[in-house]
């Protein structure tokens, strides 16, 4: 098991933002975090990436998170924050190489080339990052984050906070396919916050939907993405169509008169 989270709670300024979260990730598994704004998704992710103090247990590859040496942990756990502002004239290649600093001493190597090809940024190699579009910057940061753990052996964890938010639809598909394939091939466990329900349905093995800091429902896409759950969590009226591809499609029906719903949280573990 790559990641095991037990009764995780996070308090910020005396307020409980995340409450009693339990989850586990196997190697190669892609789990996506859903939930309305302010549900505590990013806070959960920041606790997992070691930025916030927490209550409960986080176990990475059989060892408590706090027991890891930072430099060793960095080769097994990579984090992509929601937004990375670069104010300095760094080239695309330099930024990606930062993720490789501990393995390749920052020199351009094969992995950087490969990731740039996969994420369609080879043509940007020598461009300055501050001059790139939001979507291009997102792919550059993703390449840096992937490069950090790609050639480590053993269990690895990738934490992504809205890594496709600025991408056009074609690049969203491309990026999610790359992530999914690398997870499968390399046995990397992925925990990603996503807002696009259909993207989540298409690329995740499991979904965890949060509401008010708690887990509302956990399971496969068909289990979690139901009309009633969406109404309860988001107050979102939608039709859910089961596609022949094996995952559901969520079709919005407008906000209508639906208000924030009051569904009872019942975190069901998928078998």
């Amino acid at each position: 098991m790559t990641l095991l989270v037990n009764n995780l709670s996070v308090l910020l300024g005396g307020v409980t933002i995340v409450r009693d979260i339990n989850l586990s990730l196997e190697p190669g598994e892609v789990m996506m975090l859903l939930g309305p704004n302010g549900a505590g998704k990013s806070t959960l992710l920041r606790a997992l990436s070691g930025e916030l103090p927490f209550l409960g247990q986080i176990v990475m590859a059989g060892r408590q998170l706090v027991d890891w040496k930072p430099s060793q942990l960095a080769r097994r756990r990579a984090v992509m924050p929601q937004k990375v502002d670069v104010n300095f004239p760094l080239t695309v290649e330099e930024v990606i190489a930062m993720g490789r600093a501990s393995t390749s001493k920052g020199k351009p190597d094969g992995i950087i080339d490969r990731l740039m090809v996969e994420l369609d940024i080879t043509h940007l190699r020598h461009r300055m990052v501050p001059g790139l579009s939001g979507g291009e910057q997102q792919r550059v940061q993703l390449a840096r984050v992937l490069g950090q753990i790609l050639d480590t052996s053993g269990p690895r964890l990738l934490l992504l906070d809205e890594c496709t938010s600025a991408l056009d639809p074609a690049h969203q598909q491309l990026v999610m396919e790359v992530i999914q394939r690398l997870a499968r091939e390399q046995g990397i466990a992925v925990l990603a916050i996503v807002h696009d329900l259909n993207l989540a349905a298409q690329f995740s093995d499991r979904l965890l939907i949060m509401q008010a800091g708690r887990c509302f429902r956990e399971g496969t896409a068909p289990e979690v993405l139901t009309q009633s759950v969406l109404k309860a969590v988001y107050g979102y009226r939608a039709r859910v169509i089961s596609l022949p591809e094996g995952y559901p499609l969520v079709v919005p029906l407008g906000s209508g008169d639906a208000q924030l719903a009051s569904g009872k949280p019942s975190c069901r573990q998928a078998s």
Partner: protein
Amino acid sequence: MIRDAAGRFGYTPALIIVVCAAVSIALLSVASGAYPLAIPDILRVLAGREASDPVASLVLLEVRMPRFLLGFLVGAVLAVSGALLQGLFRNPLADPGLIGVSAGASLAAIMVIVLGGTWLGGWLEFAGEWALPIAAFLGGSATVFLAWRIANRSGQTQVATLLLSGIAINAIAGAATGLLTFYATDDELRSLTFWTMGSLGHADWDDLLIGAPFMILALIVAPCLARPLDAFLLGESVVGHLGYPADTVKKAAILVVGLGVGAAVAVSGLIGFVGLIVPHLVRLVLGASHRVVLPFSALIGGTLLVAADSLARVVVAPAELPIGLMMALIGGPFFLGLLMRRKVV
């Protein structure tokens, strides 16, 4: 091939150019001054032989050499400190002078001068001739820390807050300095003018002996922080994600800046703008990676200050301009130009 694919200078040609410039400016600086020295005399003295003018070796060995070395070290340390602060605050406008570090260091130094006879007598007795540089170091470090605490909100540095707090810190230090001048005797007042104007005019081997260890230590430690500082450019949280101890790096950088700027202020007073101009130029030409910015800033900063100092002592010869004034004349317009042309802050 001079420029690489990113439109930057290659490191090797850049290094050759910078070293050539540094060496020629060093020679020029050693050869220029109010007292005319013949080039053959300079070469003879540097080779350890007797010069035809007996005063030549005194001027060269007792005045120009320590002055050149001190100027180079101070310039290098100020430029490197500027680069460290800019990385730490993720802002190209951070500068030891602008955010008040130099003022904090000089206030501490002035306190030692003025209150050394009364309140701080014990400190002077305890620390001896190191009292001044150590006080300046403590003052400098405390100010960096203060600026950090004020401007940093949940991992993000507020640029406006940083510069505004710099204005406030400079104002407070200025006022406190003014207050101290009220209690200063005439003799002490003379020393105070030296601090506020910045000068290398009295540089000798003793100054070098006291200031150099601090400054050299700062210059040695700084490059060790290059990689984590690169990560700082992506955000404070990214530093931790990449496996660097963000807090340790931050504290180390603050100490290095306090050490370097404190020692620089202790031996040469307030000299502004070196830390702003030099790293900026290096980034423009060679890129923002600290593994490049730090060493090149040291070289170019030292060279720039030595050049400015040479200029300061020939333009109004036989009198001299304070070097702080000279740098402000060069740096002020440069800073304004930077503000007008900037695309990103």
